[in-house]
């Protein structure tokens, strides 16, 4: 248990009045971000990131990660009260959450979902506390070939495990790589993909892409779908909260299952959205009341929320230990690390103990603070959604513009943001996943550097990626994951040949 001491040290770092104030601020902003359509975890963090450039890294990450937790909590509020998922990961929460609200049981649904989220996140943080240092210690042995293999693994698993068409995932990811290439090549000093235009010489900042794709794109999709916020009111009082808590232990099996699913989907980049659907599906399969799912079952609210939070939290494990983000928001946070001058990767645990353990400690505190805040302020945030959209929409756009401008103090970036917004709208409607694009944009340069350093070391011999057990295993695993859907369908066909013939 040699992780307890650094964790306690982390608490001592975080528990200053300044950091705790930032934590509250982060959670509140995060809930607003999660509640409003058009603002979500990734772009909420991206918009506020420029404001933290001058802050201490630990304080900055405490605030930004709290925005992330707040956004995850906030997504459930709109799902349950308005039948509108504020975040993609809370789509599954609408299935049973909204029927419950229609029956006048919104208070129970909200309490159950928040508590489930809290427990899921707690499991995720525990996993990080005990596993991340071990992974980081192990990864200290990694050289460029191993790192490239791990990057390959991440990219391949995004394509193989993604929910969307693999072809569209590939295009989205490759466009991200192409955007990452723009600007000066760090190894040769040559300008790449600028098409002779000086505006592109600085490169395209991932923050601009995130704000445009997720922020402006989401607004455009929202306005097209024509949302009317006619929500149910929440009757959340201490009595309802304690009654619901008393009933929660009944769902212990669902809670454990969803937490495990979430952790798995978070560490492997499956994402919170996939985790929430899987959590819901599996809970339904095992439940004795499975017929009543979809008509207002508390269990149907607990399952997806627990999984989504467990996944959202554990997505930070590979980010901290390996420098590889498990979700779009984690990718933005990772970009933040680089901006604050920290090199993500296993060395963080050695060289920046304060930062890492401060962040982990803030996850415990942030989720407790978050649970208390959401339980006590739901009516307030529900009121935000009753503000008419013609007021909300321009304000969100203005916040996006300010965020994009302040990255480099350049209006050109705001135009890029608008362009990314149009792309985001098209891609969302056509089913191109956006997370691979962001991931590739953040990691592209590092992956290329790792590859070229490996090649310099091996004198251009590709077999270095199979040269020892460690790197060989990771490479093979990456290729297996890339072709995972094909492998699964092949296995199915071999097992039941008749079924295989029936399916063309």
């Amino acid at each position: 248990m040699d992780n307890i001491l650094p964790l306690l040290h982390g608490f001592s770092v975080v528990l200053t009045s300044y950091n705790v104030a930032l934590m509250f601020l982060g959670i509140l902003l995060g809930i607003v971000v999660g509640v409003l359509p058009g603002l979500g975890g990734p772009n909420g963090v991206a918009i506020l990131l420029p404001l933290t450039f001058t802050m201490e890294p630990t304080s900055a990450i405490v605030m930004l990660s709290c925005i992330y937790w707040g956004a995850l909590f906030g997504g459930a509020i709109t799902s349950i009260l308005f039948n509108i998922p504020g975040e993609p990961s809370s789509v599954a929460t609408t299935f049973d959450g909204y029927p419950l609200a229609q029956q006048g049981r919104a208070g129970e649904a909200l309490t159950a979902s928040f508590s489930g989220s809290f427990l899921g996140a707690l499991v995720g943080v525990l996993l990080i506390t005990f596993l991340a240092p071990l992974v980081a210690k192990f990864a200290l042995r990694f050289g460029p070939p191993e790192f490239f293999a791990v990057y390959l693994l991440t990219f391949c698993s995004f394509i193989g495990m993604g929910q969307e068409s693999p072809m569209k995932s590939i295009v989205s990811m490759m466009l991200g790589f192409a955007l990452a290439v723009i600007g000066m090549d760090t190894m040769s000093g040559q300008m790449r993909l600028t098409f002779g235009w000086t505006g592109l010489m600085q490169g395209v900042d991932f923050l601009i892409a995130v704000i445009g794709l997720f922020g402006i794109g989401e607004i455009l999709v929202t306005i097209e779908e024509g949302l009317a916020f006619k929500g149910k009111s929440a009757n959340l009082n201490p009595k309802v909260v304690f009654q619901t808590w008393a009933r929660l232990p009944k769902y212990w099996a669902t809670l454990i299952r969803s937490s495990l699913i979430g952790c798995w989907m978070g560490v492997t980049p499956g994402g919170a959205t996939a985790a929430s659907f899987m959590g819901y599906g599996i809970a339904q399969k095992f439940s004795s009341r499975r017929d009543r799912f979809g008509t207002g079952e508390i269990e149907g609210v607990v399952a997806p929320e627990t999984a989504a939070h467990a996944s959202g939290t554990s997505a930070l494990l590979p980010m901290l230990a390996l420098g590889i983000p498990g979700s779009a928001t984690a990718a933005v946070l990772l970009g933040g690390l680089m901006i604050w001058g920290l090199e993500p990767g296993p060395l963080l645990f050695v060289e920046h103990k304060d930062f890492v353990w401060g962040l982990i400690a803030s996850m415990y505190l942030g989720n407790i603070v978050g649970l208390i805040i959401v339980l006590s302020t739901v009516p307030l945030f529900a009121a935000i959604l009753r503000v008419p959209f013609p007021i909300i929409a321009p304000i969100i756009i203005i916040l996006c513009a300010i965020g994009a401008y302040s990255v480099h103090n350049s209006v050109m970036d705001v135009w890029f943001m608008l362009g990314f917004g149009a792309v985001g709208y098209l891609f969302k409607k056509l089913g191109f996943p956006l997370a691979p694009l962001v991931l590739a944009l953040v990691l592209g340069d590092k992956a290329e550097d790792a590859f070229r350093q490996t090649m310099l070391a091996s004198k251009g011999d590709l077999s270095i990626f199979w040269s020892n057990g460690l790197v060989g295993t990771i490479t093979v695993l990456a290729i297996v994951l890339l072709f995972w859907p094909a492998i699964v369908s092949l296995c199915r066909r071999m097992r039941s040949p008749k079924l295989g013939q029936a399916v063309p």
Partner: protein
Amino acid sequence: MGVLYRTVDFLVAVLIFFVGLAVMIESYDLGIGWIKDSPGSGYFPFRIGAIISLASIGIAVQALLNNASEARTLFVEWSRFKLVLAVFIPTAAYILGIVFLGIYVSSAVFIAGFMRLAGKFKWLMSIAVSGGTVAILFWLFEFEFLVPLPKGPLEALFGY
């Protein structure tokens, strides 16, 4: 009137194909092979462009063969797309406004105009909300966060 989902899917794939092609052409001169023992500057970009183009051909073919009922519905109703344009075009005008008027004045006009035209609010209400919001933004960014945002002639008049 309007275009089918399938058609847009196809057209976007064609567009992406040309993006891939452009990436390949642009990186060709950088050296797409190996220079001594390491890939040249154009090695990765060229292959990225190639994969983009190849995958987009795949998407285009899939789009053409896609006969599912969703693929044959409209990509977007014209009446709904008008709403999208009603947000997109004013946003472009707003960014143009940032260049000439500064971000605060442009934001105030943007909110008030949007409320008046899209939300049918009364002028007084529109001006009050936009003025209040911009005042809060000004206070936050100029005094609290100390992030200098672009300013125009009006702010110059007051000495900012």
